[in-house]
């Protein structure tokens, strides 16, 4: 790497200071922006995605998370059906979260799944 700054805190001239561990621990370690054909527009730390079924996909990481207890968030385009849609992250007995992949589902009223023209996901946590 070109260079390295080692510091435990960064300080703004007027707005106060911040421990750099907030930056390290609080930054997204993986993110993806995909379309309704399951094509990946852009990403970080993603090796591939698995198009599982209508409205269901799974993102496979390049660098594993250290444990399965990381956090993820996501959103999608809701143009087709207004405000009744939401995105759910499947964590059932049959599809446990893994350190190497994370599923993302787009639901309509919590029942049927639908493809989205835009689907994004971010994952936060410690890497292996």
């Amino acid at each position, binding site marked *: 790497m070109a260079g390295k700054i080692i510091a435990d805190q960064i300080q703004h001239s007027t707005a106060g200071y911040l421990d750099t561990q907030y930056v390290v621990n609080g930054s997204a370690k993986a993110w993806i922006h995909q379309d309704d054909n399951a094509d990946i527009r852009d990403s970080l730390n993603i090796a591939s995605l698995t198009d599982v079924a209508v409205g269901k996909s799974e993102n496979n990481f390049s660098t594993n998370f250290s444990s399965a207890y990381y956090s993820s968030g996501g959103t999608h385009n809701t143009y087709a059906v207004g405000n009744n849609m939401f995105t759910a992250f499947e964590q059932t007995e049959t599809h446990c979260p893994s350190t190497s992949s994370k599923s993302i589902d787009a639901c309509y009223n919590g029942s049927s799944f639908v493809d989205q023209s835009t689907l994004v996901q971010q994952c936060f946590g410690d890497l*292996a």
Partner: protein
Amino acid sequence: MTQTPEFKGTHLFDRLCWAKENLEGVQSDYRVVYEDSVDECAKILVPDPNWMACALQGGILPPVWVYHELAKDEAQQAFKKHTRGYLLHQTEPVAAMTEEEAIEYLIMKDCPEAVWKTYNEGNRLKMVVCKKEQLPQTREWRNSWKISDDLQVAA
């Protein structure tokens, strides 16, 4: 061509950040279609453009066996946290691959082992590598997609 720094010992995430800044993404036309359950439709594995750029560049990604070792650890009943994450960062990175070799690597990394190890055993194919344009052109009936029975295993 951009020269890859000596990355052995560098955290894999840092290498990926370097690649994102220095390499142009490569959208692959290859898709891997596989079936891992008779009750479910076929799944499609789509390579990531940034990952593909790393694979073609060489000197960035760890060998695929590293992921298998981590998967073995994770499969243990008592697994809580990876203790051998260093394998991702300390193992000598793999050399530049062709796009076809990269797809083979990705199959072994992200498809279930039970699929790719026995894809051509049994009565029908469980996995096929194809081009994107060979998939149905619309996602109508996506939940019914299956690998065609007409496909033959290459000799």
